[in-house]
């Protein structure tokens, strides 16, 4: 019993240290974002909402936030629409191709963002598909960037619920492949898909290199906006970072909540 308590304390200490390590920079940023006069004291002498006010009065910020949101949403939605059926067909009907797919989906990790961006710009400026600098190119690049998360997430969900066997059972009971997929596979993998969606969303929301290089000159996203205004004032940059963080936090919580209700229904 005491041993277990000791182990519990060990774990708790470790956890607290880890949390501290992760949250300290965030807390410091948050304090700085609300700080007025802060020179030679531990905590600011004065608190102010000035930075947030100027931020939220700046239409460019709101526009950038909106740009990021819709670009990420479109990319993730496109990825879901293509990847769910594709990974499903692969997992259930062509499991032999999986080793090949596993190789393909890690490629986005292997190519550094700068290299990918330069390559994409060169390929798509001029030629038959002249879309360099447009949101189309960015959405395409985003699609590739989240490929690994989507593939792994969807595939794991399918295997966890033994999708091939569910399909066989449904088929023997008279369901065609599409109907079987919609009635007994899709409802069971929704929680897993929501997690992949969430992950992809946060990855894209934080992605800077591709965004800045591909569309930075034409389209203001939160990342690009942040980097532009960072030099102006540390307080303002902190305020941007905190708003950005709060935005992702709210988004994540909404998605998680959705996942939980869906998951509860599946598990009964």
């Amino acid at each position, binding site marked *: 019993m005491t041993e277990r308590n000791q182990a519990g304390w060990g774990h708790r200490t470790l956890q607290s240290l880890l949390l501290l390590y992760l949250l300290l920079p965030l807390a410091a940023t948050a304090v700085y974002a609300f700080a007025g006069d802060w020179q030679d004291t531990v905590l600011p002498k004065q608190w102010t909402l000035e930075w947030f006010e100027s931020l939220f009065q700046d239409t460019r910020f709101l526009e950038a936030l909106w740009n990021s949101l819709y670009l990420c949403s479109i990319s993730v939605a496109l990825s879901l629409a293509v990847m769910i059926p594709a990974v499903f067909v692969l997992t259930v009907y062509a499991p032999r191709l999986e080793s090949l797919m596993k190789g393909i989906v890690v490629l986005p990790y292997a190519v550094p963002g700068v290299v990918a961006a330069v390559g994409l710009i060169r390929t798509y400026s001029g030629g038959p598909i002249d879309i360099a600098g447009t949101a189309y190119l960015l959405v395409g690049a985003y699609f590739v960037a989240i490929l690994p998360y989507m593939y792994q997430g969807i595939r794991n969900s399918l295997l966890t619920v033994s999708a091939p066997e569910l399909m*066989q059972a449904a088929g*023997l009971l008279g369901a065609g492949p599409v109907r079987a997929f919609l*009635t007994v596979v899709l409802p069971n993998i929704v929680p897993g898909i929501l997690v992949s969606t969430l992950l992809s969303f946060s990855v894209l929301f934080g992605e800077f290199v591709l965004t800045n290089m591909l569309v930075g000159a034409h389209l203001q996203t939160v990342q690009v906006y942040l980097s532009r205004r960072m030099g102006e004032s540390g307080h303002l940059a902190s305020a941007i970072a905190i708003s950005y963080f709060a935005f992702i936090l709210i988004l994540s919580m909404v998605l998680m909540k959705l996942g939980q209700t869906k998951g509860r229904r599946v598990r009964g």
Partner: protein
Amino acid sequence: MNSYLELQSVRKRFGNAAVLNGVHLDVAEGELVTLLGPSGCGKSTLLRCIAGLAVLDGGRIVLQGRDLGGLAPRERQVGMVFQSFALFPNLTAGENVEYGLRMRGESKRGRRRRAEELLALVDLEDKRDVYPHHLSGGQQQRIALARSLAVQPKLLLLDEPLSALDAQIRKNLRSEIRSIQQRLNMTTLFVTHDQEEALTMSDRVCIMNKGVIVQEGTPEQIYMTPRTEFAARFMGSYNVMTRPEALRLFGSLEGSSDSYALRPESVKLIGMEEDPSGHAGRGKRIVDGTVDSVSVLGTIVRYSIEAAGVKLTIDALNDGRLIGIGERRNVRLALDCSQLLQLEKEGA
């Protein structure tokens, strides 16, 4: 025999490995036939070919006069129960049972009534609104059985349905499945690697090895007269001997077979202090042996005994008569020559 289900030289390969090497089988209506064999013998593949989940490389499968070749699983009117249950986790037990009827477009009321009948059949009426996660393994498998029976298939395929369950549940469910099958007169193919399951449940048992049926017969025939060494070894603890070994034990032999089999319970054990004359007679033989080990298996005690340089397994009823016989003790064995079986060569 007017066959209900006919398998004609069914063949299947996976890459270079031949899994089914020309399987022939006729099944009569209402019969429960068991495919028994070790893992990798092709029994599950055969079932999957019949269900349409695997494509045949050769041969024909005919169900009630209709060739199943080229038909999708859903057009075959075949029900299947999987080892892993394969219940739909997002549907309740009742919805699972109704699923096949829903796919056929039956009315909600009709579906509901049929599901209730079937849940009653498997004795789970009170679990209609429960999700599979909240059911025990045995209950899940009963729901799976009800689900496959709901669409009134012409043929029921059971792919090791009891293998994932505990021993006690397995025994109960085994007799339950058999009684439901008999009540509905449902033609059934049952796949298992458990010989006890095969013997207790079936009208007929087919022993499979290396992609062919090596022997078929009633459970009694299969148990009492295994034809090959493989069948003898697979059917339990048969003592399989070479010809010289059998000669040493029995003195003289009938036939010219290379190997012989002796059922473990056909040998009688006699304590050294007992008078062996009661066991003597025509075709009987008494030999001396030494006990190597004794293990109590409940109603049966299993002895490992060496006699005339042959290691034998001998089963005796655990009635207390042989209580004094322990390890390293000398005993006498009463052998009955008529119980010695000649075995055919493999593949003969």
